[in-house]
């Protein structure tokens, strides 16, 4: 029965050799190797739920009067067709809210999983030769995912998303020399743009970006498969030349399927049980309205933090504005962070002179300098991220907002250096203690051997003892 099926496929596709190889493709076994898979599955859920949402969304900013009697607080209000369609989808379409919320949670988790995956790759040195390309594709997908997600919540045209959109617009406008033209071009005129803006954002969100991410994802996975996975040196059999792992079938397949279905399950549970972005509560956006406590989704929190931390100045030369303020926090800061991510494999090779092939991973302690620098950069971004929520901290814990901002303006420079040094020192210490333990084990083993020899067979010949 099985054989007949295989034969049918092979006769028509000549794929048996390839399939056989694929079935026995090896997956080195470690839990952290699954984080990238979680991101992949979140993307699958995003595409699936997203397709459903497109059937209900209207990409128009034409003004309509809301006439849905299912939600009195908005009844009779003027709003864009886009916003009205999402309110309708959320409150009047059966299971619409479940799918919209699952879509939004999946976006939050997609990016969180990418970030965790990136941490794993960085701190274990998995990006080293021959896998730099794979790494760069991954970092590119992260930037695309951030833009895609920003477009996604901007499309809704509720009060919060409108505020997010105008901030993004202002950051673009602040780019020296080209900002004005660039934004005029993208928005088809000044903010809030022309009626063409929404279809433009919509097609970018549902077609251009997903296809780009999908293509890069395919290339990413293909490269992984061509070069095979990296592995930790868990057993003696695992070397730079020999990979030890669980075959794709039957060992890995049910696990990966389980992870996929499990991730999807968690996303749907969240989508049904935990409310996310209740846009019907925010009301429609107008350029002249705003609300306190407006924040971007978590993955852009580091940017709002940076925008808030930069002291109030425009870079001017003799009264001529060269660089308006939002550029620093909104554009320069992410450029520095992503620049670091892109350049890191090259920088490391430059400084260590390490041109070798690496299939074995480092533990974080094995490369104290890398770990130290990584911890420094991560804590820098995380501190700026925390600064972005200092207004809610003020509301919740009563710590003065202005005080917090001043503290962060200093701490974001001091603490990362400190954390980096501490991480570097801990790695060094761990290495040293590991060395001590290893030496002791060796010495103990030697002594045990000697003792055994002495007790079991008393020396007959003095020469054997010496040797």
């Amino acid at each position: 029965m099985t054989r007949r099926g295989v034969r049918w496929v092979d006769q028509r596709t000549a794929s048996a050799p390839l399939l056989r190889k694929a079935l026995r493709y090896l997956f080195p076994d470690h839990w952290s190797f699954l984080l990238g898979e979680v991101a992949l599955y979140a993307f699958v859920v995003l595409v699936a739920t997203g397709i459903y949402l497109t059937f209900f969304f209207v990409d128009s900013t034409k003004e309509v009067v809301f006439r849905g009697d299912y939600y009195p607080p908005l009844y009779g209000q003027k709003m864009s067709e886009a916003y009205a369609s999402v309110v309708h989808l959320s409150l009047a379409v059966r299971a619409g809210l479940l799918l919209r919320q699952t879509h939004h949670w999946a976006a939050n988790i997609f990016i969180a999983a990418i970030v965790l995956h990136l941490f794993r790759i960085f701190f274990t040195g998995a990006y080293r030769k021959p896998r730099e390309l794979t790494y760069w594709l991954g970092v590119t997908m992260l930037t695309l995912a951030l833009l895609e997600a920003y477009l996604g919540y901007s499309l809704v045209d509720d009060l919060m998303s409108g505020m997010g959109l105008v901030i993004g617009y202002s950051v673009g406008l602040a780019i020296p020399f080209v900002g004005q033209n660039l934004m005029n071009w993208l928005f088809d005129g000044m903010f809030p743009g022309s009626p063409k803006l929404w279809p433009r954002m919509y097609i970018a969100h549902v077609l251009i970006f997903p296809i780009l991410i999908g293509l890069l994802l395919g290339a990413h996975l293909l490269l992984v498969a061509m070069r095979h996975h990296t592995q930790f040196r868990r057993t003696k059999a695992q070397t730079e030349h020999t990979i030890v792992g669980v075959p794709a079938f039957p060992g890995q397949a049910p696990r990966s399927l389980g992870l996929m279905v499990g991730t999807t399950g968690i996303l749907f549970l969240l989508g049904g049980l935990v409310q996310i972005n209740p846009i019907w509560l925010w009301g429609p956006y107008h350029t002249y309205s705003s609300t306190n406590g407006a924040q971007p989704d978590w993955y852009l929190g580091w940017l709002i933090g940076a925008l808030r931390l930069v002291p109030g100045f425009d870079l001017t030369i003799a009264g001529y504005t060269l660089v308006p303020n939002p550029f620093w926090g909104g554009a320069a800061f992410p450029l520095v962070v992503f620049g670091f991510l892109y350049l890191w494999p090259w920088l490391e090779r430059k400084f260590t002179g390490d041109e070798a092939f690496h299939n074995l991973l480092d533990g974080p302690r094995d490369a104290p300098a890398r770990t130290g620098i990584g911890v420094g950069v991560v804590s820098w971004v995380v501190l700026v991220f925390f600064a972005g929520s200092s207004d809610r901290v003020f509301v919740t814990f009563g710590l003065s907002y202005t005080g917090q901002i001043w503290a962060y303006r200093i701490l974001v420079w001091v603490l990362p250096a400190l954390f980096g040094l501490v991480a570097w020192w801990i790695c060094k210490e761990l290495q040293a203690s590991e060395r001590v333990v290893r030496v002791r084990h060796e010495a103990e083993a030697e002594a045990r051997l000697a003792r055994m020899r002495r007790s079991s067979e008393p020396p007959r010949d003095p020469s054997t003892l010496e040797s």
Partner: protein
Amino acid sequence: MRAVVTIAILVGAGLLGTGSAGAASGPPRKPLAAYGYHLYGEYCLSCHGANAAGRMNQTSTSSGSGPGREQKQQNGIGPSLQGVGALAADFYLRTGYMPLRHIGMQPRREPVFLSNHQIRALVAYIASFGGPPIPKPQPQTGDVSKGLELFTEHCAGCHQVVAQGGVVTGALPPALVNATPRQVAEAVRIGPYVMPKFSQRDLTDRQLDSIVRYVEFTKNPSRPGGWGLGYLGPVPEGLVTWFIAIPALIVLCLLLGRRLRS
């Protein structure tokens, strides 16, 4: 505790009755207002001055960090209360905004330790100087949609669009979960601390009813999506992402994959 306070009040009232405070005019005739007059001497006089005329020059700067609500002899500065009427007195006393812990702080909602009768007495005393009466908002006649519109234009910038409270540099606009319709109506007319003050011309009573109706709605807003997360949007959502969803997914990964030292 309550007994101590009551005794203190009685003693204070006794002192005042014989004392020097009522220099310009004596206690009012009506018994309730008269009782209020004594209470005023006990709790309000040190900052708001005799005859509710206000105090501007700060003679003593002993604004300690201790339980200031019990420090009776501290001299401070305070606005005149003449003409603020029953409306303001009722608001500040029933929210626990007054007495203030120490001068210069933003008044916040605190447990009220005056009894209902005492509050009514103080309100009657302040009202004896004239001013608007306690408003009687009728949220049931308001329009919740109109309310959201007005709230967005006038209030959401500080109080957040679902009235969950927010930040303005130097002050903390409170959440309105605990504000009763009457208190909301009063606050709109007074503009406590740095809040703008809306007159009848700015917002009619009818419009105010709609705003109050909307504020009532925000106390238990529609929550078809499940756990509401405080109706704040992204910050708590990010917390759920990183502290619930991601740990759950990592547990899943740990179940499926091997650990290095196992």
